[in-house]
């Protein structure tokens, strides 16, 4: 079946709508004016140079990278064994357990933010990197879990039986057979978790202190005060980095596989 001219026009408008705000941000970032304007009088990099005067954005970027890496790693540490078990065994309460692990997807991030602020301030950990990482582990866990589950469900159980019949013990089977087979699931789980953590804004606003502010939160706070070409320049850099990451992920995993069938974001 072919798309008619009407369908193609709809598609063009749809894509234009999706890209409009991001194109807008990138254009304004190159303005040569001192105020918000499209670069009608020629392109300029002045606002990108100006970023050098704001080292706190670079610091926040590093904080974000650190939190995203450690929370994705920690979430997988727990999600891999749990995911393998849920995918391969039939036991009472299996569906309930799965729903339990997926439950953070249903909780609004604002509620998680409030819950963690309460929880961490009770422990005296509010505003610490450790507290932020714990919060992010909860948020990325369902994404890590889903990728491991999807991968482990497709595994042929006979391979394991073959290993057992050749005399491999349980530990050897996990180390030499099962874990190598689910590496792709672990890798895509890491990628998805990393992105979710890096972009998380709402919950982090509640938990971050001035020294542990992540990049999206720093940007949000800045926008609350003023919208100027500087914040557009930062956003443009972030969009560029995302586009590069997107192409890499698409090459390595196929973005479709990473996102289709995914419930929430």
């Amino acid at each position, binding site marked *: 079946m072919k798309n008619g001219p009407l369908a193609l026009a709809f598609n063009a408008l749809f894509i234009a709508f999706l890209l409009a*705000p991001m194109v807008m941000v990138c254009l304004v970032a190159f303005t040569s004016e001192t105020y918000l304007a499209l670069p009608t009088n020629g392109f300029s990099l002045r606002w990108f140079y100006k970023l050098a005067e704001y080292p706190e954005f670079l610091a926040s970027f590093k904080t974000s990278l650190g939190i995203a890496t450690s929370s994705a790693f920690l979430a997988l540490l727990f999600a891999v064994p749990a995911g393998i078990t849920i995918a391969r065994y039939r036991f009472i309460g299996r569906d309930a357990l799965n729903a339990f692990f997926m439950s953070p997807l249903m909780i609004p991030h604002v509620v998680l933010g409030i819950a963690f602020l309460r929880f961490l301030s009770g422990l005296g950990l509010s505003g610490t990197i450790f507290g932020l990482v714990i919060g992010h582990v909860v948020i990325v866990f369902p994404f890590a879990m889903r990728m491991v589950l999807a991968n482990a469900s497709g595994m042929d159980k006979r391979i394991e039986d073959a290993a057992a019949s050749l005399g491999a013990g349980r530990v050897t089977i996990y180390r030499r057979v099962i874990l190598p087979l689910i590496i792709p699931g672990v890798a895509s789980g890491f990628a998805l978790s990393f992105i979710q953590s890096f972009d998380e804004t709402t919950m982090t606003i509640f938990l971050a202190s001035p020294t542990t502010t992540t990049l999206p939160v720093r940007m949000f706070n800045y926008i609350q005060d003023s919208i100027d070409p500087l914040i557009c320049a930062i956003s443009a850099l972030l969009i560029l980095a995302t586009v590069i990451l997107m192409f890499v992920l698409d090459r390595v995993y196929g973005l479709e596989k990473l996102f289709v069938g995914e419930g929430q974001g």
Partner: protein
Amino acid sequence: MKAGREAFVLTAPAVLLFLGIVAVPLVMTVMLSFNEWSSTVGIISVMKIGNYREIFSDVYFAEIFLRTLRISVLVTAACIVFGVPEAYILRRMREPWRSMMILVVIGPLLVSVVARTLGWALIFAGNGLLSQFLLSVGLTDAPVSLMFTETGVVIALTHVLLPFMVLSVWAALGRMDQASEKAAQSLGAGQFTIFRRIVLPQAMPGVLSGSIVVFTLSASAFATPAIIGGRRLKVAATLAYDEFLNTLNWPLGAAVAVLLLVAIILIVVGWNRLVERRYAEVFSQ
């Protein structure tokens, strides 16, 4: 036998982790919502339903919750109207166009919501692109600003959540047999009839699951309504934030958060029941 013990050993750490860092904080929040607060003393640990009584009796809160509901319904409707045809068009597209377009649809999901909403703020402002366009076309003779309006929030949220609807419907249409469309065509059905009688019924499961995702995410959205709506146009999530971090009335903020969470859980469970019943009827026919 041994398998049971193995399953237990492998899942126990994750279960304990979740009990510790999901269940405990949520229970603490529910308890906090029953506490009281005064500007002089701070949090008073009592167990009373005063905060809930205040929320249910004050029109101010009713207005905010109603606005949240209205915005979520409108965003969901807009996502269905624009997302379903787009998913169908994508399915009929040929390679390599299809892969390229999918990338463009998924791409925005990876870009920080703050950066995307910033783009809308630039477009919506009184001296922004939209206003200049409307002025030059002659549709208006004074600058128009969609900042701090519900329309602005609905448009920006639709933009943020549209990819979820497209992906959900796209996944549902993936199981569609192209032959049935060709059969309908050979029997003389027009484009519109094919879409309505063949495609739409098969897209329905995707539309239903996409709708619940879009609805719940817009009901709990924070960054977009905070930037576009500002202080003047509060929704449930920004209300909870203000009570917590500006007024510092933690118990009241916790009560708002608990109500938002309960409402969302009820809607998700109710919706799933409804969908199951609907499809049970289809299967028994």
